[in-house]
């Protein structure tokens, strides 16, 4: 039995997406209400898709699916994850080609309807390219790819992405990118600051935001933001890499747990209303 688990997790990517869809349809009727439905989009060149999938499915025991970039249905998921990687090789500009994928049309209208979308690293870049988040991610100031753990200060804990944190908490989560230098015009940055849309900033281990703790030159040390409605988040750091206790640090779990809990609260509210009405 142990071998079966192993085989699945070694290669969790389903090979026939068409076949997978019918399985989803069959499962829908029997699905437990305590599990939330996550969809991890697979673009050609995505390479953190397995990692996000593993954390949601195996660590948090959520109902998790891959969504193929050529498909045009989100299969009824509650949350869409745009994973890290190099979609379409990032050859033109990071995320610039991925935004034209058939699935992105659906993701955009899903987000416009209030659906929850999380973009991690390359996913953040795609969200900016597709206009779901303001600004752009430029090449790192140091001109090299940087992969290492960084400290992130939680700037706003009153969101569905950070409710399990306290404002001012310092999270240790790794980055791995060549283009993570967040940039936007002055007015946009002021708006983001004013509306508390900045969720995470790079900081030192004691939580001070300093130039030295900024790994890529991003404006105001910005590491992650959300849109004005609070349903779309983009982060350069990889919370899915700091979520498996086997590997050590687990601060990334707080972000996933926040999202899952916020959905459960919604669901409970909904159920309560239904109960009251009946």
């Amino acid at each position: 039995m142990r071998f079966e688990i192993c085989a699945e997790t070694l290669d969790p990517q389903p090979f026939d997406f068409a076949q997978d869809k019918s399985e989803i349809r069959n499962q829908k009727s029997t699905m437990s209400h305590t599990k939330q439905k996550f969809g991890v989009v697979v673009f050609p060149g995505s390479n953190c898709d397995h990692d996000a999938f593993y954390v949601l499915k195996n660590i948090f025991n959520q109902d998790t699916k891959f969504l193929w970039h050529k498909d045009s249905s989100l299969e009824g998921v509650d949350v869409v994850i745009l994973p890290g990687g190099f979609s379409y090789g990032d050859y033109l500009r990071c995320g610039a080609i991925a935004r034209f994928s058939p699935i992105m049309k659906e993701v955009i209208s899903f987000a416009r309807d209030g659906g929850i979308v999380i973009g991690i690293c390359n996913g953040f870049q795609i969200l900016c390219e597709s206009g779901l988040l303001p600004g752009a991610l430029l090449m790192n100031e140091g001109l090299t790819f940087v992969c290492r753990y960084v400290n992130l200060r939680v700037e706003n804990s009153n969101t569905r992405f950070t409710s399990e944190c306290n404002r001012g908490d310092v999270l240790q989560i790794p980055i791995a990118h060549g283009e993570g230098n967040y940039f936007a015009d002055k007015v946009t940055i002021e708006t983001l600051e004013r509306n508390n849309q900045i969720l995470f900033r790079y900081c030192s281990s004691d939580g001070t935001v300093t130039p030295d703790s900024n790994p890529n030159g991003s404006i105001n040390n910005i590491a992650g933001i959300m849109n004005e409605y609070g349903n779309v988040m983009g982060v350069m750091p990889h919370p899915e890499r700091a979520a498996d206790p086997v590997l050590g640090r687990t601060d990334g779990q707080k972000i996933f747990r926040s999202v899952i809990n916020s959905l459960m609260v919604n669901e409970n509210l909904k159920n309560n209303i239904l109960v009251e009405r009946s």
Partner: protein
Amino acid sequence: MIEPIIDLELAIKHGLTEEEYKRILEILGRVPNYTELGIFSVMWSEHCSYKNSIAELKKLPRTGERLLVKAGEENAGLVDIGDGLAVAFKIESHNHPSAVEPYQGAATGVGGIMRDIFTMGARPIAALNSLRFGNLDNPRTRYLMKGIVKGIGDYGNCFGVPTVAGDVYFDDCYNENPIVNAMSVGIVKHSEVARAVAKGEGNIVMIVGSSTGRDGIHGATFASEEISEKSESKRPSVQVGDPFTEKLLLEATLEAIKAGLVIGIQDMGAAGITCSTSEMSARGKSGMVIDLDHVPVREINMTAYEIMLSESQERMLVVTTPENQDALKRIFDKWELNCRAIGTVTNDDKVKVFYQDKQVADVPAESLVLGGGAPVYYREAKEPDYIHKIRNLDFNKLPEPINYNDCLLQLLSSPNICSRRWIYTQYDTMVRTNTMVEIVGDAAVVHLKGTNKALAMKTDCNPRYVYLNPYEGSKIAVAESARNVVCVGAKPLAITNCLNFGNPYKSEIFWQFKESVRGIADACRELGTPVTGGNVSFYNENPDGAVYPTPVIGMIGEINDISKVVSADFKNVDDVIIILGDTFGHIGGSEYLRLYHNKVFGDSPSINLMIERNLQTACLEMINQRLVNSAHDISDGGLAVTLAECSIYSFDKNRQLGIQIDIDTDLRRDFYLFGEDQSRIIISINPENMGLIESIANHYKIYFKVLGKVVKNKFQINNCINFEVADLAKRYNDTLRGKAEIL
């Protein structure tokens, strides 16, 4: 196009010898045409045929109960790791392309070795690399290093495999000829292993992946020559990598193999279609009819010669049945990759190639390949004069350092010792979320999801030792890489090797090679780690001489319980610091001697393999009984540097732990602190475990000694070395960045 007249002169221009040209005439019974001459010249190049090395390589121990294929039989070695799984791994050189075009040369090195792994059906889970550069004060070295590191990073990062470990040395001898060895490790279920064989008459031969261009023609021949001023003109022989396409090729290939649609598959690296068609045919004792008109090309007016010899990257040759052809095509269509039938398998032994309705080649497959008709040479070996000259030094005449603090700081900021952070932060070390990043130390540890197991891996070779004493130095390379995986708690399983040497036609160089292979063989036999395969790179020469002989060892170790892994950083105040293994003050070939006294002299340290094996077994037993809080092998820079590293690593984890030790020895202090005797490990333990540690050490007859204890912040050795750990960490961590980023 009018083909040139084929004669001996043209053959020699192709890198063939007169004798080899005569053999081609004999084999064919006629004069080869231009395409055939090209085919023979690449297949009989050193790079593809191993003609000057194979006789020696056969002396390596290449069997073991857990090896699932013999060395050289498939694209990479394959070792059973239980639970129905196997690990596929191999290391390969890309020195020559990297010397002229560092970025693409290194990038395609990574791409090539990844294909070797996934062509076997294995999903790559980790990459390593072993690099040697010239003097860092030389701007050319910095240019090469930046390009090579960026090339490795960009390819691996995009492809989505973590680069987890490696080793780096700097020496003037690599100024014009850097060493770039890339290693890949993959995991495959026994039932899904694919083979590089063509069989079954009438089966379909398909080319998949990228289209074919004029890049990399004669790359294999170029890699079989010395680097010279003329090498710059060989830039077109360097291939161009596309990691995005490789990522798609990976997913499509694994999907096709899992679906059972593949009879045989081989990647196209050196010598492209030529090598894959002839090797697959020869392995299956069959032949092929190939029609080049069906090969997707990216340039117009390509000749048969060019298509056959192109080394365009990200391509594979697949043999499938006529029934499965469409299903195979559907998978590659899904990933938007070419998948074209270019021929069929036949039951004669010939590779017959057609282009534009003409037959352009008709060659017996067996005659081309290693183990078949490719030439095998027994070269002359002669001990070089330098060996005796350099050993003639009286170490006791060396002045003792006046200030040991300065001496330690100098060593910690030597490019050969200081932190490699500037390099490895450019690599994605964590993608796929299996890397146990907290295990800072001697080897990388990669978890196997869904099991309680992990693999430890490391590359190693101190080329200075091998230069001073090829036999002992090569034994040490194997022993040290094994010791490295032992220090994280892994049992050494098997090795792959990449043997980087100068021109084998020089008898002194060939002596180095022969001695080195003998050393590797002896060490592998004694330590029970067979050779699963590897690569030989000759002709690593600068205009003014050969590089140090550099036999890089890639070691894989097995961890059965991940909760037992150990890192090198000190953990707790008052832990007892113990040295396992005896110290004799061997200073020859040491970093201290080179750096402080500016001498590369003496003999390499010697190693007693029986003691080494016992040391490793004892250390592993201590770790398995959870008696050890940290373990770190003593290597470059000796005892003092090792202790400093254990402290610096703890500083990096915000623990700021140092040492207080008192050394009581009859040896000269500098020899004791900086000597590089082998078979030594520093461990720190909870004082309560002293008795058990003692009994294990005694049982394996391992010398051990309590040196002192772990303390907060201070780094203190007798009254001669005294630091704050933060100051050591700063020097160790910042040096390489400082040196690399000078423009």
